[in-house]
């Protein structure tokens, strides 16, 4: 059994290509005014990591407070502000843009053989909107924070709290437009910029997943925007649309908010699923089993995802009939998700599996996402939901999907494409260690929360009865390990920028078009427009290609 598929060029003679998108121009301005999708992706990667660590520090504070049953680290209203900002930053400034804005931005044009995204200026604009939104979010924290929870629930947000709802709302509104423009750009690019021969069913599944997620961004986010505008107007001048004393209905806000915010979880997870399709094929040396089914399951998730939002509202007084319908529809979403998991598992079957870091993260994703997804079915069952909602079971469920699923996929993707983005390999052993540490830390943090939830510990409180302390100590200890697991990549990836082994064009012997050009790529991506003459994940084609190259060099 060969331990690895990595094939690097001879390190004594290899060098990073002199001309590439990083060295093309120098100076800060050449980055801040760039239209190059790869440079914008790098800008996003840096700014996203920054916000991830702010959100992570807030999570650390939450876990530290919950170490003991009493409220001893911070006052209860401070605790409310901390978990609100943790949610706002992690969702709107990390999870929603994470994979699409970094990896998607970098890779979609490369994968479909285009020179750039269709609208480079809009792409840059979306990064600036993201930064403006981020500055507003940081301003909110600096000027006293906000304590409504990330859901801005009315009438709490409109009538009762006296914190910075408006600046947070504006931050989310602006960041939302950043997301709309990213999605719009992807859809146009995938429709109009594919290279000759790149038919829809020859596209990598990563592109399909982003296409589905982009549809959700384009159709869902504007509804969130209008919901936030209405909250702002309600709060400032009291227009009454959500105010029961004037005949408005707070439930309408819930409908508008979750009409975006439920599809938003698919905006977060779908691009991650795209990453997994790529890594699992590469590290099993097999075409993804059931390519068409996996492609359409992405679209199915996007479509079904729009018709399940009211499962967030089972305890909020919607009618029994809509509860029934939304409960059934929610279970329907589990089907395409399961199709993906089953197909990936079949891809592994009889594959030549190797265990490089991206693959370790991928395995982490598959296990944790499956647990997160199945507990989602529990919660979609209206009776069980009424028992478990607003407990730590919910917290554990969505952290399994978002952190165990999405963050694992993000890290898998960053490691997998790191050689393409920088031209250098990350150090393999220590990164495998980081993947294992992350997995252990994650389970220790969030598995106890399932138990806590079923025992009845409510979420969003700074204190809890003493009998829950043992499990909470486990959880906090796990969070510490998880924190180490997330810090490690920052350190060794930075180290690898200078000292990593030179990767060459295709260190993984992967089949995607992005691997057939130099690393880091040229500003124009390809020397000549490629022509796609084979299916995606065609390893035989790759072998022929390599054989031809050797022959021609000889």
């Amino acid at each position, binding site marked *: 059994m060969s331990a690895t598929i990595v094939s690097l*060029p001879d390190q004594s003679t290899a060098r990073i*290509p002199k*001309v590439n998108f990083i060295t093309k121009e120098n100076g800060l301005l050449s980055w801040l005014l760039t239209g190059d999708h790869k440079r914008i992706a790098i800008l996003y990667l840096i700014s996203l990591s920054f916000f991830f660590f702010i959100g992570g520090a807030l999570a650390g504070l939450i876990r530290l407070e919950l170490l003991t049953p009493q409220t001893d680290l911070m006052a209860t209203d401070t605790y409310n502000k901390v978990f609100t900002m943790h949610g706002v930053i992690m969702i709107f400034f990390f999870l929603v843009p994470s994979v699409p804005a970094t990896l998607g931005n970098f890779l979609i044009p490369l994968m479909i053989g*285009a*020179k*750039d*995204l*269709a*609208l*480079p200026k*809009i792409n840059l604009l979306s990064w600036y909107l993201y930064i403006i939104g981020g500055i507003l979010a940081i301003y909110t924290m600096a000027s006293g924070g906000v304590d409504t929870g990330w859901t801005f629930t009315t009438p709490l947000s409109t009538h009762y709290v006296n914190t910075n709802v408006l600046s947070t709302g504006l931050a989310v509104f602006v960041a939302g437009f950043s997301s*709309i423009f990213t999605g*719009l750009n992807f*859809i*146009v*690019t995938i*429709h*109009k*910029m594919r*290279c*000759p021969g790149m038919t829809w069913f020859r596209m990598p599944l990563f592109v399909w997943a982003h296409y589905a997620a982009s549809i959700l961004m*384009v*159709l*869902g*986010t*504007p*509804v969130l*925007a*209008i919901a936030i*505008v*209405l909250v702002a*107007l309600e709060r400032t*001048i*009291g*227009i*009454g*649309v959500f105010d029961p004393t*004037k*005949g*408005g209905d707070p439930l*309408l806000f819930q*409908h*508008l908010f979750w*009409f975006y915010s439920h599809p938003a979880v698919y905006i977060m997870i779908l691009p991650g699923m795209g990453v997994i399709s790529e890594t699992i094929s590469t590290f099993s040396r097999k075409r993804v089993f059931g390519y068409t089914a996996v492609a359409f399951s992405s679209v199915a998730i996007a479509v079904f995802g729009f018709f399940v939002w009211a499962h967030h509202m089972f305890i909020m007084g919607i009618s029994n009939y809509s509860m029934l319908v939304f409960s059934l529809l929610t279970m329907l979403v589990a089907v395409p998700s399961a199709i993906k998991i089953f197909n990936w598992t079949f891809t592994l079957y009889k594959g030549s599996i190797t265990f490089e870091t991206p693959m370790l993260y991928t395995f982490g994703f598959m296990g944790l996402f499956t647990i997160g997804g199945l507990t989602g079915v529990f919660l979609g069952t209206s009776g069980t939901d009424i028992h478990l909602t607003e407990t730590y079971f919910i917290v554990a469920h969505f952290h399994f999907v978002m952190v165990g699923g999405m963050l694992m996929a993000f890290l898998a993707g960053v490691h997998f494409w790191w050689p393409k983005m920088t031209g250098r390999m990350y150090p393999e052993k220590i990164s495998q260690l980081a993947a294992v540490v992350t997995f252990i830390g994650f389970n220790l943090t969030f598995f106890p929360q399932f138990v806590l939830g079923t025992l009845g510990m409510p979420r969003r409180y700074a204190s809890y009865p003493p009998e829950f302390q043992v499990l909470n100590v486990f959880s906090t200890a796990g969070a510490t390990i998880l924190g180490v697991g997330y810090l490690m990549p920052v350190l060794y990836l930075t180290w690898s920028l200078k000292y990593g082994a030179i990767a*060459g*064009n*295709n260190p993984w012997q992967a089949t995607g*078009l992005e691997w*057939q*050009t*130099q690393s880091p790529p040229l500003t*124009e991506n*390809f*020397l*000549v*427009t*490629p*022509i796609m*003459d084979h299916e995606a994940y065609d390893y035989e084609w790759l072998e022929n290609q390599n054989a031809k*190259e050797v022959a021609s060099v000889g």
Partner: protein
Amino acid sequence: MSDSTAIAHGAHAEAEAHEAHPAFLRHHFENVEQQADAAGFAMWLFLLTEVMFFGGLFTAYLIYRNWYYPAFVAASHQLDIFWGTLNTLLLISSSFTMAMGVWCAETRKKKGLVLCLVLTFILGIGFLGIKTIEYSEKIEKHHVPGFHYSLQSFLDPDSDPAAKAAGDKPLPLDMARHTEVYFSLYFVMTGMHAAHMIIGIAILGFMIFRARAGAYTAGHVTFVENFGLYWHFVDIIWIFLFPLLYLISRHANT
């Protein structure tokens, strides 16, 4: 593997690209058609997001209109149908002049284009002017939600000429209070529409400036076409707002 390893197909594409390479063709597009296609498609998608944006408001409107129908009817009688109709006419005319502008750009008629854009600009300003008159009427009658909102016109219709003319009967206090929800939606929906108009008029000003320099009459008309789409979209939103807000059962009491 050398630096330049890339799939070595498609050498023709490079050669073709040099044949017709107008200055406005961005480097990442293969040809002018692809660029125009992409820009047009992006604009349609953007308008789709706008539909969803206004969709939230229309949903709210439909729900509350169903719940509080009498209040919505009485409140809509406070709107001036004359100004509303005139504004509808202004907007439809502006859509016509805009469409003519796109045609002028395509057929490279510079003077015609500038004229059409100026007319569209004036009609747009006219629309906003009339909207200001309407808003100030509401302010005078204390029909702005949240600012000393007055129920006078609905509890005692005879004291209000508009309500009296429509033959409104006094509403019970409970229902009368819900007129505030109607005016909230009226101001948010027409306000959002007006915000789109203001953005459109600002872009129009910029375009007049550029059109005089001949920027759109040299074969590259994507910007004018896409702006035309935006302008028609804003027009269509009004075409929905006008009946929903102004024309709810004009003859309910006759």
